[in-house]
Structures are given as C-alpha cells and as structure tokens.
C-alpha cells in the first residue's frame, strides 16, 4: 500500500514539475518582454528572476524525467547527476540558481559592491575544478557553496521581502524554502508533497497573484 502511494505521489510530483516549472519561466519571460516593449528598459529584477527559473528548469526537468517511465529507460541519472555532492549538470544548475538569487538580493538592496560577487565566485569554482582535473576537493567546495548560498539566500529573501515590502523577494523566499524542504525530506511521500507544492506556489507566483503587500494607487 505504502509503495503504491509513494509511486502515485512521485508520479504526480515529477510530472507536475516537468510541466509547471518551464511554464513559470515562460510566463516570467513573457512579462519581462512585455514590460520591455512598453518601457524600452530592462527590468533587472525580473531578468534575474527569469535566470533563476531557467536554472531551476534545467535542474528539475532532467532529474525528474530520469525517475519516471518511459524516460527513465534512456535518461541516465549518472550522467545528468542526481545529487549536489559532485560537480555535475544538476549541481551546476543549482549553483547558478543560488548565485542568481544572491545577486538579486544584492540588487534589491542596492548593495552595489556585491552585484557580481556571487556570479563571479561560482564560475571561478568551476574553472578551478576544470584546471585541477576535477579534483574531488572542488566537489566538496561546490556542495558547501550551494548549501551556504541557499541558506543565506532564503534568509535574505525574507529579510528583503519584509524590509522593502517586496512581493518578489518574499515569494522567492517561500519558493526556495519549499524547494529546500523537498531536498531535505528526500525521496518519500512528504518530499513528493513538497515537490507538488513547488509547482502550485510557483505558478501562483509567476502569474503575479502572490501579492501580500498591496501597492497603493495615488489618485489625483
């Protein structure tokens, strides 16, 4: 019974995220493009959110496909990587995601000195690993960077969200918290519920319905 339930939740969780996560990226991209057409200016906050969602899509689609039939027969989990313990396409996408998140926090808070810090730090880890023939020491370094940056990212998303009354930061904080929960609970029914929650909340967020802080219209 438990095995069957787990199979069903895993199937729902994986398929929902396979469809919804890229959809979130597309919605953000459309909104960014529309805004650019109207104002002729790039909204960098939205662009960074798009980058986060693209990295998220890159992380979630291959890993989820490797777990569901019929794709699990020809997508090898070993090649795409299923954990962040080693440098592989999956951990690189997570690393980029947290780096974009840190840049977004710096940008939202106008910490000019830190705008490109995370975005330069992470590629340097990868470049160093390549120059040192993929030394296992860099796998550990990569993993610690991902966890540390993720925790800092979540904390500062909440801080920025409440401090600046910014819906985007708060929304991303909640989204990252759910994703972190899914990662922490691992491969079981609770983990699957968290995965489904990512898709549901992500869709609400990207469609612009997550607005706990209302903006006041000034009349006259």
């Amino acid at each position, binding site marked *: 019974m438990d095995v069957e339930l787990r199979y069903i939740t895993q199937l729902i969780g994986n398929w929902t995220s396979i469809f919804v996560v890229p959809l979130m990226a597309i919605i953000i991209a459309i909104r960014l493009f529309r805004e650019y057409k109207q104002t002729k200016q790039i909204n960098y906050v939205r662009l960074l959110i798009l980058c986060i969602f693209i990295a998220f899509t890159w992380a979630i689609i291959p890993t989820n496909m490797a777990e569901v039939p019929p794709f699990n027969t020809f997508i090898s989990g070993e090649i795409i990587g299923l954990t962040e313990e080693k440098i592989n396409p999956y951990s690189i996408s997570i690393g980029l995601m947290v780096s974009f998140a840190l840049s977004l926090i710096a940008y939202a808070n106008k910490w*000019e*000195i830190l*705008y*490109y*810090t995370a975005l*330069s730090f992470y590629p*340097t*880890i990868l470049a160093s690993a390549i120059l*040192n023939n993929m*030394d296992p020491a860099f796998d550990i370094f990569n993993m610690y960077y991902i966890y540390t940056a993720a925790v800092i990212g979540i904390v500062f998303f909440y801080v920025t969200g409440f401090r600046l009354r910014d819906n985007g930061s708060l929304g991303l904080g909640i989204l990252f918290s759910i994703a972190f929960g899914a990662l922490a609970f691992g491969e079981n029914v609770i983990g699957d519920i968290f995965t489904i929650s990512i898709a549901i909340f992500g869709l609400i967020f990207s469609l612009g319905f997550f607005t706990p802080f209302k903006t006041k219209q000034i009349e006259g």
Partner: protein
Amino acid sequence: MANLMLMIFQAAFFVLSVIILGISIISYRKSKIYIDLFEVVLYSVIVFTAFRTLILSHEAIPDEINLGGGLTINLILTIIIIFMPVQFLLYLGDLRKFYTFPTITAFFMILNLYLSGIILYYRIAIIVIGAISFAILFYEGLKRKNGKILSFAFVFMYGLSYFPINIIVGLIFQDIGLLMMILGATGFLDKYILIDEHTQEKIHKIRNTWIARRFLVE
C-alpha cells in the same frame, strides 16, 4: 663577498621601504583619503617582504616555507602585491560593482596553489593581470599628472622581482620599483616631473592677486 653585497642591498631595501611606509602613514594621517590608505597597506606588505628577504639571507633560516601543494609564503605575498594596484585601479575608476573581483581571484589563486602544485596558470595570470594594471595605471598617472598613481604602476615591477628570474635582473626590477614608489610617496614626481601647467598657472594668478591686494592695502 657577493653574499655580503647582496645583504647590504637587502638591508638598504628594508630601510628604504620603512621610510616610505613612514611617509605614507604621515600622509594618510594628514589627508585621510583612500588613495593614501592604499599606499599604507601596500607599503606594509612591502616592508614585510623586505624584512623577510633580509632574514632569509641568513643560512640558518629555510629559504621557502611550503604551506601545501605549490603554495609558499612568497607566492602569497606576490599575489597581494600584484593585486593591490588592481584594487586601486578599480577604486580609481569608481567601478564599485567590480570591487570584490581582485579578492575573489586572489582567493582562488591561493586555493588552487594549495590544492595542486601547478604554478604555470598562476604565473600566466599574474603576469597578464599585472601587466594590464601597470599599463593602465601608467597611462592614468601621466594623463592626470598624478605621481601617486604613476608610482603605483611600478608596484608590478617590484612584484616581478619575486619571480624566479635572474638575481641581478630581479634586483634591478626591485630597485626601479622601489625608487619610483619613493618618488611618488614623497611627492617628488608631482613637484618636478609631472608638472601640471594649468594648475601652476592658477597658483601663479592667485599669488599675483594676493601680492596686488597687499600692495594696494599697503
């Protein structure tokens, strides 16, 4: 005899670097501007390296202390010396968004040297980065007619002397580098070499006005 000569040279370097550090500290205490603070930090590192070179010439002290992989104290010092002008360059251009780049690059260079013995990438990177900062600072120093900026360019030459090159060439590099830094720190370059005619003209006019007014009052 040759060793004694070398030791005298190194002792002279040490004394000179202490003098420059003293001048830069006085200058910073007077002005309280970042450009002078950069000088204080840089010259502190140079004093330390000069002192280290001096004591290393004693046979009882080991020549190189290896910290792991290819990382030695000498290499850490060279990285600091080479990256200080780069940081200064970013400060000069007010490129605040890139302020952390030298620190990140230096950190990874040290990490890579610690994990592996390969120092080829390090040497290539340090020469390329150092040469670029030398060229830009040299150009900016001449353009702005600022002796301090010009003298900062020559830090690259000083840093090069810590590379495994011919000992005489190294000494010449060190000589030129240190000499230019002294000239920059003491204000000699500003006063006698990079004379800003426009500013001089202004000063001259002000002086004349002052004399004229005093003459009228009297």
